């Protein structure tokens, strides 16, 4: 009898201990949850790594971070615009310096999987035209890095080796200048038929098996352009629904209006999957359009249909399983990431919320995955950072909108 009483006491102790430990967490979780689905769905589970990356040296500071990619060694590359920071952030870079900090970091930074800064380069140099406003960075099958730009004159793409050696340039800056271009009152016009130049490229992605580059073209043009990786030769291009692109202004997005038959600027990403489909971010139209690699329209998925302004579909990345089962979509207007089941394009869950703390977003701009399934994001506007979301495995997710996915151990 005594041992039975003892057993009960110890069991109660253990149960109460776990319950007490979890009570506070449960309350916090309930407050954060905006929507709770009745049934859990199986989805990839992530948590933010607040310790990644490690601090930059030399009083370097990031600007709007508008590109991220992961190379074959799982090193992470970002591109940002540190020179665009206000002087209040660049005290040490003024002449004379007014403070000990800060200095804009070089535009291209490479981080190890552990978050150490490995390499840095970028900016104007001899032999190439650095974009007026660099935009997007992606590693190609050769390991080279491709960079676009959405500055006024940017109509070209740059290719660099990983050590920063300039390799190639496709297109000429200034090609999109209007016929009546006036330096005092500059104007540019899109030309989505131009076979040799671009219109403010947002991002370039690659199909290694076909040796092709997919250009989200872009902030001025309204097309997906497919290039030969080695020569940069334009092979084909298309607009929304596979239509011939038309650069005419179609006005602002209206959620009540019929779907636009053309992309709106910017066409922000065009990523081929490994089963012959291409996922295009038609950003202000709040939709992902899916095509075959020849440009044949397959389907579209509208996300957060009532989003105005900059739109909801900024960048896509695929899960790293062989089937690329999930699609991750960055949304810099609603400050979150969508997790979609690729087969049905059903939104399983979202994570993130507006703010500047770890796991929050301000201008979720770009997204990429590594071989272990981890997600990396960069943020533009005043977000100005890169974040890592550690893949914890596939598990049941109850909340349709998870909010900040803070590390479980610290909640």
């Amino acid at each position, binding site marked *: 009898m005594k041992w039975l009483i003892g057993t009960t006491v110890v069991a109660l102790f253990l149960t109460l201990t776990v319950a007490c430990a979890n009570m506070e967490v449960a309350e916090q979780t309930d407050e954060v949850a905006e929507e709770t689905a009745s049934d859990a769905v199986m989805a990839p589970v992530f948590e933010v790594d607040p310790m990644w990356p490690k601090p930059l040296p030399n009083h370097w500071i990031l600007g709007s971070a508008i590109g991220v990619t992961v190379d074959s060694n799982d090193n992470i590359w970002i591109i940002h615009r540190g020179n665009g920071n206000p002087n209040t952030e660049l005290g040490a870079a003024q002449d004379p310096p007014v403070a000990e900090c800060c200095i804009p970091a070089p535009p291209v930074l490479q981080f190890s999987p552990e978050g150490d800064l490995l390499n840095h380069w970028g900016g104007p140099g*001899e032999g190439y035209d650095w974009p007026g406003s660099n935009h997007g960075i992606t590693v190609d099958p050769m390991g080279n890095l491709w960079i676009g730009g959405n500055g006024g004159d940017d109509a070209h793409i740059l290719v660099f080796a990983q*050590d920063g050696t300039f390799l190639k340039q496709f297109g000429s800056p200034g090609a999109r200048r209007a016929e009546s271009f006036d330096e005092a009152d500059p104007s540019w016009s899109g030309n989505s038929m131009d076979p*040799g130049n671009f219109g403010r490229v947002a991002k370039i992605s690659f199909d290694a098996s076909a040796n092709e580059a997919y250009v989200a073209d872009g902030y001025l043009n309204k097309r997906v352009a497919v290039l030969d990786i080695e020569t940069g*030769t334009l092979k084909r291009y298309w607009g929304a629904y596979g239509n011939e692109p038309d650069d005419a202004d179609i006005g602002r997005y209206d959620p009540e209006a019929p779907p636009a038959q053309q992309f709106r600027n910017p066409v922000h990403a065009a990523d081929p999957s490994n089963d012959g489909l291409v996922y295009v971010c038609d950003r202000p139209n709040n939709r992902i359009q899916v095509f075959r690699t020849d440009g044949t329209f397959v389907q579209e998925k509208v996300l957060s249909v009532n989003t105005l302004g900059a739109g909801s579909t900024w960048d896509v990345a695929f899960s790293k399983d062989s089937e690329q089962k999930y699609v991750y979509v960055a949304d810099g207007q609603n400050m979150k990431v969508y997790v979609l089941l690729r087969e049905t394009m059903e939104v399983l869950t979202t994570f993130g919320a507006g703010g500047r703390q770890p796991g929050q977003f301000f201008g979720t701009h770009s997204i990429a995955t590594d071989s272990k399934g981890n997600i990396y994001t960069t943020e533009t506007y005043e977000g100005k950072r890169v974040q890592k979301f550690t893949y914890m495995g596939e598990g049941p997710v109850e909340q349709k909108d998870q909010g900040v996915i803070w590390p479980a*151990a610290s909640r």
Partner: protein
Amino acid sequence: MACRIPVGRADGVSPLQGRRTATSPVAVRVLLYLAFTGIAAAVSLTGAYGHDIPSDITVRAFVKPEGQRLRMLVRVPLEAMLDVTFPLSGPGYLDLARADESLNNAAMLWIGQEVSIYENGSRLSLPELAAVRASLPSDPSFRTYESALASTLGPPLPEGTQVYWQQVMLDVLFEYRITSDRSEFSILPGLERLGMRVSTVLRFLPAAGGERIYQFTGNPGRIMLDPRWHQAAFRFVWQGFTHILDGMDHLLFLLCLVIPFQRLRVLVILVTAFTIAHSITLISATLGLTPAALWFVPLVETVIAASIVYMALENIVAPGLRRRWMAVFGFGLVHGFGFASALRDMLPFGGTHLLTSLLAFNVGVELGQLLVILVCVPILRVLYRYIPGEGTGRARPVGAIILSVLVGHTAWHWLVERGGTLWEFDVMSTSPDGALYGVAGLLALMLVIAALAGWALTRPGRPLE
């Protein structure tokens, strides 16, 4: 429908490739270099300037004995091949048309002459360089032996391929003459000089079938690919011995055992009960008899923390000896699951001697625990002697209570933290399978532990020694 570019029109377009010089300005590079010199040591540099030693290198290799030959396939980044001049073109592309000789030299210099393979204890002579191929960094062929072999023996990259030399992967096939594919093989990789930190994934495909994956960083010493039982046992005894000394929560649990009892014979009994228990669950986990769900590891860690809290409290309230081994046995079952996760990646080093390796690991853990006891007991005796309030007869030393409070306090924080993590997995209300496993597992573990602990707690114990 996509808009096709007419061939003539597209060809008429002249991208700027090749029109410009491809050299970055020297001044910029000098400035960058100077900036780098101020960076803390934590920031490593990789090959940005000339042919430096790369910081992180990953080597992938397959070893497969087949009949009278042993094949070794290796993939190494070309940038790791120092002291070899590769023919370049343009801004730094590997000139594939002229690269064969330098690639062969690099392969023999940095791999063929460095790797030592032994057959039945005798080192094999230098291998024949059967094939060398430059590959793209995105090439996925080294995921399996078959695809790696097919790729390395397959056609080379087209000569016009423009791949920057430091981004090239060097794929090499070596062939060694052996007397039998059933011999005992071992390998001394010797590849640690390829970079500041060299990580190797070595897959051994024995003639009997199957595959063993060895992952290591730097120089692991000579790896017995087909170890004899005593070789496997020795390696795993050492692994177990070092592992217990690295695990803070296991050490605190041990300390809880030592704090109130200082008679070696008693402690050896307790520690042995612990070892037998964790051996059972460690072997079960290794054989795949545990849930693969995400919540399982947090569950184990939570209960491990609870075990320390319980033992510390028992030390304070009523340390009894007669039944304590039962509680220790119960908690040992849980700690075994914790050991299993640490052991999983090491098991290939045991070759075919899985059970021997597991038992040897446990022996190593037992030896480590005994060492801890041998160190702690005299220290505690001295400590208790000088702390005021030392008990006599049946009283408990004040020192034992203070130590138990400190240990229990530490473990309590772990318990709260790990319990919170476990709660996040929402074990109770997930999918039907998850709920079943979760509830059953949690209740079973708690009941086993509670029953054993309750039994021990309510029986009369011996007075403190």
